[in-house]
């Protein structure tokens, strides 16, 4: 695989690369995380002017929205965009492309080995800057920071699967040893042929990430078994989803839930007098707002096999429901019956759009 080594830290190296792409006109815009130097506020920004690039912090462990959501329409604009995505954002985007919610054609997808992101409350409280040095130390030692999202701690897909450009930002990347950039596609090689740095050929040294992989796998098992224990069975589900206020925030921020008219927001779930009468005649009491649990069960069946475990849903839940852990656990299990891995390959069709004539002999 072609590679470029830039004798700078990974975060400086990637900024050089973005500057090269934008200033040479290889791309019209850059999408990446940004921190405003005056206020310390974080957001995701689309930048077209080179002078605004310096505010970008593309590798920062912050995800204010799952970028794949906003990238959908942008990717169809006909403009060339370099998008810096966390591995799970890239996988989510691939899932969206499969659902005709975007295109990879005009994009340069740039991703990096990922140490996980901070929950949004730490970001909103302005703590990222202070937490960053420790985070970087822990991640470069191949360990899991204790203050990242639960599903990040349990994420096994922290090496990007099919980015045009991959930056080594966890594991093999040691401060001062230079920034390794891997070019996985012809368009990336073409666009970066004149980028400064030492051009060569190399593959990501994944052995340096084995320690992290093992730790993540252990965390995953721990998380899923605690979810199995506390959040399953009717009683368990009532206990956790009984807290739900029905804001649908979790589905709003979900990169997979793309339906503009969600069934749960349609007239099918517009409660009227006959609904209340029927329900009360049967049970004598009704929890309001109604059907919050049905909402979760429905969403779990509709989309969980495509869940990439980014953790946005848990982060926005106002009542602390571990939505992401429940969805990722259930999703892993539904995806497994179809041998499916969300975001692995854009040509792999989503399981409910295809079938085999001979399958599931135990059913029917």
């Amino acid at each position, binding site marked *: 695989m072609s590679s470029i080594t830039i004798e700078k830290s990974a975060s400086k190296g990637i900024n050089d690369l973005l500057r090269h792409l934008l200033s040479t006109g290889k791309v019209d815009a850059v999408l990446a995380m940004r921190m405003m130097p005056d206020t310390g506020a974080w957001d995701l920004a689309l930048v077209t002017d080179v002078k605004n690039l310096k505010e970008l912090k593309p590798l920062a462990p912050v995800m204010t929205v799952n970028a794949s959501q906003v990238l959908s329409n942008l990717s169809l604009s006909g403009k060339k965009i370099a998008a810096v995505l966390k591995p799970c954002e890239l996988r989510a985007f691939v899932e969206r492309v499969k659902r005709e919610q975007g295109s990879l054609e005009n994009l340069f997808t740039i991703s990096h080995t990922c140490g996980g992101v901070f929950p949004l409350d730490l970001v909103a409280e302005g703590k990222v800057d202070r937490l960053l040095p420790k985070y970087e130390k822990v991640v470069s030692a191949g360990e899991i920071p204790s203050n990242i999202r639960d599903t990040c701690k349990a994420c096994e897909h922290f090496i990007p699967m099919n980015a045009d450009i991959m930056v080594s930002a966890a594991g093999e990347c040691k401060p001062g040893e230079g920034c390794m950039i891997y070019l996985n596609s012809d368009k990336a090689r073409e666009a970066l042929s004149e980028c400064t740095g030492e051009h060569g050929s190399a593959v990501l040294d994944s052995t340096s990430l084995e320690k992290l992989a093992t730790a993540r796998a252990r965390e995953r098992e721990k998380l899923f078994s605690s979810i199995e224990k506390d959040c*399953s069975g009717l009683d368990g589900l009532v206990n956790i989803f009984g807290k739900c206020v029905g804001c649908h925030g979790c589905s709003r921020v979900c990169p997979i839930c793309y339906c503009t008219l969600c069934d749960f927001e349609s007239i099918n779930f517009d409660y009227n007098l006959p609904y209340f009468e029927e329900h009360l005649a049967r*049970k*004598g009491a009704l929890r309001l707002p109604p*059907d919050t649990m049905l909402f979760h069960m*429905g969403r779990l069946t509709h989309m*969980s096999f495509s869940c990439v475990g980014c953790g946005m849903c848990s982060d926005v839940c106002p009542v602390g429901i571990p939505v992401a852990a429940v969805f990722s656990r259930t999703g892993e299990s539904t995806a497994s019956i179809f041998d499916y891995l969300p975001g692995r390959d854009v040509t792999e069709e989503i399981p409910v759009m295809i*079938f085999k004539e001979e399958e599931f002999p135990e*059913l029917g």
Partner: protein
Amino acid sequence: MKDKKEKSSNSEFTPKVVGFLCNWCTYAAADLAGGSRLEIPSSFSVVRVMCSSRIDHNLLLTTFFKGADGILVAGCHPGDCHYGEGNYYARRRFAQLKKVMETLDLDPERLELVWVSAAEGNRYAEVVSDFTEKIRKLGPNPMNSSTRF
């Protein structure tokens, strides 16, 4: 869910079972069974759909949440769907819902998929009776006794 074992001894319990039957095959089989005066449990309610692929997850989930003790989904045998491939898609979707229920420990046995052709009136009667009996043994859907969702 926990108390289903005790209730299963209750032979008085008449389960509410809902069948989603494809118009072209199983619904016709139901007609045939009726015409042949075969006995069908009176607590079995039929919803006629144009194809097993019409049945989406929310339809089935809502039926459970509204208190059905069991749900039978029935369509044409693989290869015989009136619309060609509907039942293959239906089977995938069904497998998915069943897996979700299994993973969440939500009585997946209360949900069953069968293929019954228009000619199989006898089999229809059997399938419905067997499934109803299975649900009777499982006991009432515990969702009925909670007012928290």
